[in-house]
């Protein structure tokens, strides 16, 4: 009798009253085998990335080592590097160079424009101002990408609001001067590299602002005070403390802006001159031209460039503070 009472007390002392049920058993099971739960949660995304993404990437890579028979237009399923050799032809090299230069300038412009905005949001904006900041940065992402680009085409067109505004402000000479610039100019802003550049900067800038802001948010105010305390003027504090600590965020943002520009084919198709960028080349080659191997080889280029970019960034210590 006494024994039973003690056992009962012990039981009550160490466990709560059992709720029973199948969910309870499942919880207990996963509590005992936590790694199994992790595996179960990771399996679907791993399958997705592993099979659907990496698998197709591998298939793509394989395609780039085939070639197109010039006479029959059929794909020759034999290993060759001739498709990559084609990439080095002047016209194709120009496409690559053009795309990389465009991506680099878009990234640089995004970083320069985004930084003060991100800095303001991280350091000064509070309450409603911060809410407004998030709204202003995110809202463009809610509307259709195509609508925004067509809107820009109209804004930049010869009959568009920019031309009208320039005329109203008696600045037509300036606009004409810009359009008369060699290479980047053109008949109107919407038919020039400048136009393509402006639209790219507009559509990708949220992807630069947000990581930069997140990085700046993590720089405590007392680092800035400590720097000032040790004699650094604001300019010196910026370059020795704020910028190095924000760099991982800027790099993260630049990965977005750079790779998104590198692969985009819609913006340059709608706004810009008719010179191709990599995305358009891929689109044309795999579609109308039916040259899948060369399209695949073109697709490999942004991946290689991004790989080099990340490697250089890592070597420069951009991720040291992460």
């Amino acid at each position, binding site marked *: 009798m006494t024994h039973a009472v003690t056992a009962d007390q012990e039981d009550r002392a160490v466990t709560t009253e059992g709720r029973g049920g199948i969910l309870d058993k499942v919880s207990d099971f996963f509590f005992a085998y936590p790694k199994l739960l992790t595996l179960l949660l990771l399996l679907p995304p791993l399958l997705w990335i592993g099979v659907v993404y990496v698998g197709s990437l591998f298939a793509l890579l394989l395609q780039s080592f085939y070639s197109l028979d010039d006479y029959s237009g059929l794909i020759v399923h034999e290993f060759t590097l001739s498709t990559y050799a084609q990439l080095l032809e002047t016209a194709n090299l120009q496409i690559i160079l053009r795309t990389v230069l465009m991506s680099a300038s878009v990234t640089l412009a995004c970083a320069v424009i985004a930084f003060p905005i991100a800095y303001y949001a991280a350091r000064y904006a509070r309450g409603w101002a911060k809410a407004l900041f998030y709204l202003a940065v995110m809202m463009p992402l809610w509307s259709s990408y195509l609508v925004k680009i067509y809107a820009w085409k109209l804004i930049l067109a010869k009959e568009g609001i920019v031309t009208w505004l320039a005329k109203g402000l008696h600045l037509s000479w300036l606009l004409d001067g810009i359009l008369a610039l060699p290479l980047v100019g053109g008949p109107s802003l919407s038919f020039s590299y400048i136009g393509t550049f402006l639209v790219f900067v507009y559509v990708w800038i949220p992807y630069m602002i947000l990581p930069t802001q997140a990085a700046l948010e993590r720089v405590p105010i*007392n680092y800035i005070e400590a720097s*000032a*305390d*040790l*004699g650094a003027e604001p300019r010196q504090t910026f370059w020795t403390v704020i910028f*190095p*600590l924000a760099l991982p965020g800027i790099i993260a943002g630049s990965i977005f802006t750079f790779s998104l520009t590198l692969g985009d084919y819609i913006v340059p198709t709608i706004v810009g001159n008719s010179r191709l960028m990599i995305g358009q080349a891929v689109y044309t080659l795999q579609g109308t031209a039916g040259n899948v191997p060369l399209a695949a080889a073109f697709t490999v280029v942004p991946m290689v460039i991004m790989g080099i970019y990340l490697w250089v960034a890592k070597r420069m210590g951009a991720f040291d503070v992460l």
Partner: protein
Amino acid sequence: MSPAVRFVNVCRHFGPVRAVDGVTLDIAQGEFFAMLGPSGSGKTTCLRLIAGFEQPSAGHLEIFGETAVGVPPYKRNVNTVFQDYALFPHMTVGENVAYGLRIKGVPKAEREAKARKALAMVKLSGYEQRLPSQLSGGQRQRVALARALVNGPKVLLLDEPLGALDLKLREQMQEELKALQKHLGITFVFVTHDQGEALSMADRVAVFNEGKIIQVDSPTHIYERPQSRFVADFVGSSNVLPPDFASAHGCTAKWTSLRPERIAVAAPGTAVPKGQCHADGEVKLISYQGAVTRYSVQTGERRIVAEVPAGAEFKEGDKVRLIWPKSAMVTMEDGA
């Protein structure tokens, strides 16, 4: 000789909040000065005013005879050891310490030598290549100290510098800081909410409450001659007794402070020697604190706390007689 720091009726308001409200204070050159007070009492804001992170809303502030109003922090010959050290995470310990010299344009070899010397002074030789994240709290504290001292400041400001350290390390650092200050001879201004720290380290202590200085005095006077109920209670938790209690025991009818450790706890009916006062009561609470035991004794309508060397002779509920020398009752001018 002008004082190291002079506050003349300095105020600092944040909207409706009067963080610092009419502080007038001289800190002498070479002094180890503590600003003591509860959180939100304005002591840290005063430190930040000296550092230049805050500007006074009203009043006048001088550092070594020169006005500091409107002077940015980077133009002041004052350095700060921050509460959480604020070491730059992307720089090594050596680079952190040499930062101030690098900003001043001191050549690399010279500043590295000076940084090494400063690190040796805080007993961290050989840590130059480490990152702050690889150090313990106590080591970071020393790096922060070296980083400030390497610039040869005229005033060193320390914002709760020992707050994050454990007890043992804190006691050790207290001694080291004191020795360092003596050795260097520069003015240390030091903010803390820990009265023990303030009393043990400082030459003089300013007690802050609600943006005002309540009392500035030597540690002995602060502890033994508190001028107000706030100081008596905040520094060492004294028994603060009302005027009628004082007059009943033969003192002036004013608010009076009576330190718990001055009170002896004796059996009821114990003879009271001449010049001593007594009160009879019942033990309500006993709190054992290692070296001492605190008795909370109900005498009439008030509780009196007595602290006696370890060993609990009495139990809760026992009748006792409290005996203390009349001289232990300190009359305070300020009833607030």
